[in-house]
């Protein structure tokens, strides 16, 4: 781990996590992932069905290892509790996050499908417009404090860090 990231506790890998299998290369591009989500949500006319689907996506989130369910991995600025961690795997960043609230978990699932397992450049070049296109624009409002803004911020900060790091050590 380079010195540039040492001051960020979210980069520290707890001992119990040392042997996590490296995820496979993504099957779809970052653009395809967004288009697919937009298509999936486009299937529902009713807001209730959209929420139901969002909640189902959240329920399928992989569980967070206990080692990460600590205060230092908790995101500030969310009304519900959100634990978030970003790890570098080769040239890609892999994010894990969970929440104790179901809708927030669904929003996490959306973000991870698009932003996790991508290169820092891909992450930084991708605006979260797909959230608006799937009819959840409300949640993007910074005053909603539902964690989406905080999570997007954390994802981008992590990507910027990794990007600057690779620029220094190509």
């Amino acid at each position, binding site marked *: 781990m380079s010195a540039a990231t040492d001051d960020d506790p979210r980069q520290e890998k707890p001992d119990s996590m040392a042997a996590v299998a490296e995820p496979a290369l993504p099957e779809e591009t970052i653009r395809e992932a967004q288009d697919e989500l937009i298509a999936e949500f486009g299937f529902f006319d009713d807001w*209730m069905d959209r*929420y139901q689907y969002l909640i189902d996506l959240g329920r399928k989130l992989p569980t967070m290892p206990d080692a990460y369910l600590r205060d230092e991995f908790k995101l500030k600025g969310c009304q519900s509790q959100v634990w978030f961690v970003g790890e570098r795997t080769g040239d890609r960043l892999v994010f894990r996050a969970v929440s104790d609230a179901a809708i927030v978990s669904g929003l996490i699932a959306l973000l991870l499908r698009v932003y996790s397992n991508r290169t820092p450049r891909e992450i930084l070049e991708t605006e979260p417009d797909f959230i608006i296109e799937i009819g959840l624009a409300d949640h993007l409002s910074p005053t909603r404090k539902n964690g989406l803004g905080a999570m997007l911020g954390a994802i981008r900060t992590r990507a910027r860090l990794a990007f600057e790091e690779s620029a220094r050590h190509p």
Partner: protein
Amino acid sequence: MSARFDVDTARKDFPILSKPVRGRRLVYLDSAGSAQKPRHVIDSVRDVYENDYANVHRGLHYLSERASARYEEARETVRAFINAPEQHEVVFTGGTTEAINLVAWSYGRSVLGPGDEVLITCAEHHSNIVPWHLVREQTGCVVKAVPVQDDGTFRLEDFARLITERTRVVSCFHVSNVLGTVLPLRDIARLAHAQGAVVVVDGAQGIVHLPVDVQELEVDFYAFSGHKLYGPSGIGVLWGRAELLEAMPPWQGGGGMIDTVTLSATTWADLPDKFEAGTPPIAQAIGLAAAIDYVSDIGIDAIARHEQEVLLYATQRLASVPGLSLVGTAAGKASVVSFVMDCAHPHDVSTIIDQYGVAVRAGHHCAQPLMDRFELSSTARASLALYNTTEDIDILVESLEKVREIFQ
């Protein structure tokens, strides 16, 4: 005071209530967060700016005198509303938070020393915890908290046990913003006074739901906000007994609060100006007086009776929602209803029912120690005001059924 209160007539006084939210009737159940405003308040604020506005206590010109007169009339309206003995005991602040900070910084720092005790309760709003923690850092005092029972009641014997000869200040709510519990202030004040301690009251919720007579309560300070009492935001009140306020040093310096200033020394103005440094919230104070006139015209007793009827209905209807638990069921509680559901996080509950035009608060309600006590991270809270109806409760309960459908 009118004996009969007609909620449908009263609702027409609040312009925002007739504006649909997401195409539906607005069911506003977040008045403990901030109440909506009647036209009478909105008009009075506009009237000040259109007819009588200038800085107060500064100019000798016509408009300054008009504004000063209306500002001081507002002080008298507040005095009469809480039956304070003297007008100059009423200090205008920015809100309850600033009022409590004033007491903590001015009174607390003057009288507290190492080992002296400040007694709060475990259900205080952060604005009645953090100021005392800050003063603790400066003075070395000790902050203790009275525990709460499972149903949200507080036992007077716990106050009796925890108020000791080291207690200098007892600072507690009148009505809990989460539990709705009403504290027996006069009994607490008598215990405190017997040990030589003063009683500071966070009346942010109490002033809205109960008749407040500071002399009858026998407390020493009573703080409240305008915006929860149907008045403007940015205005609050600290009432304090004159002999205490007179002995207290100012906590903020500036214009308006001085008698004389030389380059080496300042002498203070008399009460209440000593505590009103800088240009005060002029139109907001006048708007608060309009809100008090509005509430007094209906009658705070009539409002309380109406709220209690809707509270009883809400308690019964919510009890019938499977998997829903009420947090805070003390006898004689005010119309603040916190609850949790076994199928969904409070954040999820409020997001879903918002789609039905129902506004509740979800979160820790700035009372994290209380959440810890009940081992909750947050609750949903429906708080009732004079304009809420049983129909609002029906819509709330229907929307909670939808929550169950979605999350089961």
